[in-house]
């Protein structure tokens, strides 16, 4: 499979290869395309390329190959396609792409949808538009240079002739596909859809209960499964008594599932499935099961103990990951500051728990999944069932939130296993308890920070250590060190300009499935550095923003050269997405000016500040709190985000609002703990999320930028927690270094 980067300088030959076009140089991949939910009638619509079809009725069908989970990508991708295509927005119909390698990566995580697909989507729009223009020019027998497309029509410059896209579509579909390098893309000033705050395309369906999520799939003859999974990772069914379960009205069958072998990866967890004629009966039957479980190596996992060990470990030397200067030894005591920060395990708690429906037949497997990763779902299920990937069709529903949990297709695997076994369509619905107790958890973590001041009250040396079980442990047995990629997430990549820097990582063995959750390791790392810079500011008696300015140093593009560290940069070239200290400074200036205009705080109130770069975007957050009688109220949050060029400003704002609320939830209340290898929490009463009365006023400042589009969904989260605890310090004089805050404050 040709990768995306190759698209940038692709030859026509490669275009054809890339999109699997039929021979003869006709329309790109017009045959055999996996479109959903409708199959286009070939004589009424023309496929212009893998992403665009146009109907005789003038409708423009745009494929969104990325999963919609609230970020607005079905709207955003369509805006980009429609812009270069010169389509009239009122004619646009958005089609959700199935799992299909020809789209390139469909992994909807890592805040990548726009930053990785922006150019290619523009090229796809321009390709189709050029074919329509060429068709019109040929019909009018005028040079192509004399025609142009606008609002779903092609016009002739010299006359008042025009043809609609619908009138041109079928012939245009037969045009020779132009070479990518022959295309001219618009200049930013000419954008008609990019940069507009368009209403999300699913709005009316969502307001009227018509939007279809994974939970809403209903097939003829379908049965419903609820699964009791081993409470401790690595244990299996020791004994099973299903006699009561089978008596429950509606229960059809009880099936034991195999436990995973080796590293968890995306394997189903095993356990016992109750099959019924409806969801509720399946859940009732499951409650009536009597299961006992075998012992597991993880039986003794206890988070209090685990965290205490992790805190000890970060106080000891670890593996050096980045170093500048030669010594961090013999620091005079009076000029140093130390702190240890901890963040517990967290889980995603998206409103729609994991859910998938599978129908395995002699022809193959068809899945309807609320998934962020259609292709890994396809691959994993194909491998499990011994099918060719082409025989596994994955329909992507709307997702009732994802946050990284739905990147792991274990629940789709369960549905496929059961459907194969029963020879019936099966829907596997997870309960909230299942979601909370069988997650791929955000890792428990601890960090140690130490800094030294010089004689001029300036920080001149920093030592930091981080420890957490690695996501890699989910994919390979025996991994006990954070990966470089995880350390790149807000630990090693902070561009501090100090004469001496030493950053280390320590070992931690995984005792449960570790996964990625919205902004991943940036959560703990931004909490660490964001809190510590504030502590240093307090010690130096300077404003926090000023301390950041000093520690970041002069405007520059940081490359970390000669620091023994090669930076992954979220998969981007530093040339395209540099670590640009000037952009930090710009945000610091904006926030300083914004905060200067805020009303004076009263007694028991305080502002806190933090800034963080992640997913190649820059976000600064200021938080105002009030603490009275140990009761915390967050009054206001102001976020400034520089995400480069943005496609839909309103969605960037709404994602940032959501990120603030996500960050507040985790800082104030988020904790997954383990006792005897089992998760202690089970539902929203003990894994609470922020509710409306706890929500502050939120103001989002979108910083104008011509930089390349950067990540949006995640970067708002990391600075929230430190700006909150810094605010509490400002209000009360008490420093909280261990999350969540509801252990010590009423929230």
């Amino acid at each position, binding site marked *: 499979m040709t990768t995306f980067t190759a698209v940038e300088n692709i030859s026509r030959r490669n275009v054809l290869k890339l999109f699997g076009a039929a021979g003869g140089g006709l329309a790109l991949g017009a045959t055999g395309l996996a479109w959903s939910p409708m199959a286009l009638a070939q004589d009424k619509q023309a496929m212009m390329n893998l992403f665009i079809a146009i109907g005789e009725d003038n409708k423009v069908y745009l494929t969104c190959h990325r999963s*919609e989970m609230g*970020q*607005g990508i079905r709207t955003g991708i369509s805006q980009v396609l429609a812009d270069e295509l010169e389509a009239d927005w009122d004619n646009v119909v958005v089609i959700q792409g199935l799992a299909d390698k020809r789209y390139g990566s469909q992994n909807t995580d890592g805040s990548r949808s726009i930053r990785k697909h922006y150019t290619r989507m523009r090229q796809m729009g321009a390709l189709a538009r050029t074919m329509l223009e060429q068709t019109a020019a040929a019909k009018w027998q005028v040079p192509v240079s004399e025609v142009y497309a606008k609002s779903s029509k092609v016009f002739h410059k010299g006359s008042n002739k025009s043809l609609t896209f619908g009138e041109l579509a079928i012939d245009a579909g037969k045009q020779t596909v132009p070479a990518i390098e022959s295309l001219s893309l618009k200049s930013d000033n000419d954008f008609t859809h990019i940069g507009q*705050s368009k*209403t999300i395309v*699913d*709005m*009316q*369906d*969502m*307001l*009227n*209960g*018509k*939007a*279809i*999520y994974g*939970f*809403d799939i*209903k097939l003829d003859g379908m049965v*419903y499964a609820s699964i009791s999974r081993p409470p401790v990772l690595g244990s299996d069914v020791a004994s099973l008594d299903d006699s009561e379960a089978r008596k429950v*009205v*509606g229960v059809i069958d009880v099936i034991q599932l195999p436990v995973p072998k080796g590293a968890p990866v995306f394997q189903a967890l095993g356990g016992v499935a109750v099959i019924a004629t*409806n*969801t*509720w*009966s399946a*859940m009732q039957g499951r409650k009536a099961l009597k299961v006992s479980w075998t012992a597991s190596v993880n039986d003794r996992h206890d988070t209090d103990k685990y965290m205490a060990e992790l805190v000890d470990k970060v106080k000891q030397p670890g593996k050096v990951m980045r170093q500048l200067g030669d010594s961090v030894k013999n620091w005079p005591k009076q000029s140093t500051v130390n702190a240890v920060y901890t963040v517990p395990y967290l889980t995603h*708690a*998206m*409103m*729609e*728990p994991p859910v998938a429906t599978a129908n395995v037949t002699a022809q193959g497997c068809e899945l309807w999944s609320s998934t962020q990763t259609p292709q890994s779902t396809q691959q994993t299920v194909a491998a499990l069932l011994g099918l060719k990937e082409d025989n596994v069709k994955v329909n992507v529903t*709307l*997702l*009732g*939130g*994802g*946050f990284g949990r739905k990147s792991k297709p274990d629940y789709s695997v369960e549905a496929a296993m059961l459907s194969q076994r029963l020879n019936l369509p099966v829907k596997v*619905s997870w309960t*909230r308890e299942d979601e909370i107790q069988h997650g791929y958890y955000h890792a428990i973590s601890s960090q140690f920070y130490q800094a030294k001041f010089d004689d001029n009250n300036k920080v001149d040396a920093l030592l930091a250590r981080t420890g957490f079980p690695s996501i890699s442990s989910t994919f390979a047995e025996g991994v006990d060190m954070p990966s470089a990629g995880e350390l790149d997430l807000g630990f090693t990549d902070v561009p501090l300009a100090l004469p001496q820097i030493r950053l280390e990582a320590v070992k931690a063995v995984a005792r449960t499935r570790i996964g990625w959750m919205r902004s991943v390791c940036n959560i703990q790392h931004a909490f660490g550095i964001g809190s510590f810079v504030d502590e240093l500011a307090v010690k130096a008696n300077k404003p926090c923003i000023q301390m950041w300015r000093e520690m970041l140093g002069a405007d520059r593009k940081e490359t970390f050269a000669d620091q023994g560290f090669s930076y992954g940069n979220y998969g981007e070239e530093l040339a395209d997405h540099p670590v640009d200290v000037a952009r930090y400074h710009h945000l610091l200036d904006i926030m300083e000016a914004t905060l200067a205009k805020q009303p004076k705080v009263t007694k028991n109130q305080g502002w806190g500040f933090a800034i963080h770069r992640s997913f190649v975007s820059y976000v600064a957050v200021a938080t105002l709190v009030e603490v009275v009688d140990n009761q915390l109220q967050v009054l206001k949050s102001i976020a400034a985000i520089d995400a480069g060029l943005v496609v839909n400003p309103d*969605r960037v704002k*709404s*994602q940032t*609002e*959501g*990120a*603030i*609320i*996500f960050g507040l939830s985790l800082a104030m209340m988020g904790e997954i703990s383990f006792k005897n290898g089992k998760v202690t929490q089970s*539902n*929203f*009463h003990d894994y609470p*999320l*922020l*509710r*409306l009365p706890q*929500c502050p*006023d*939120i103001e989002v400042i979108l910083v104008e930028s011509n930089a390349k589009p950067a990540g949006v969904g995640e970067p708002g989260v990391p600075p929230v927690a430190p700006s909150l605890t810094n605010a509490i310090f400002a209000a009360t004089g008490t420093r909280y270094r261990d999350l969540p805050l509801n252990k010590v404050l009423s929230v």
Partner: protein
Amino acid sequence: MTIPTQTLLVNGKNFTINADPNMPVLWVLRDIIGLSGTKFGCGSGLCGACTIHVDGAPMRGCLTSLKHVVGKQVTTIEGVEAERLKEKWAEHNVPQCGYCQAGQIMSAAALLAKTPQPTDGQIDEAMSGNICRCGTYPRIKAAIKAAVTENAEA
């Protein structure tokens, strides 16, 4: 156990159904009648995703048994008359993933039906049972307030 045949009035239409009288209305609506706009989020009355109206009052569909609503008027997101609220919802671009939104609108509609001019405190209280993990609260509040302002003007 024999399953009785019951008649349920949903959005002004009668449905004849065979279901365990103890089945929560949420699952009756979703799996039996086929109205999937009412969502499952927690099954324990903690999130509000399943909010419906029973004789106009907001109820948690996941905790309300079928037998308790037979003979009453059940209203779901598919049938609720809340045009102005939905209009304001659209104007404020409230939804993100949209999954909690049916429950949010049902709670807000019940509030405004009973209290056409709610105070901020009343809005907070009426909406406190509905979780939105995506974090659309500021816009929910803004949309409700905009609908209220129009109520006041009307």
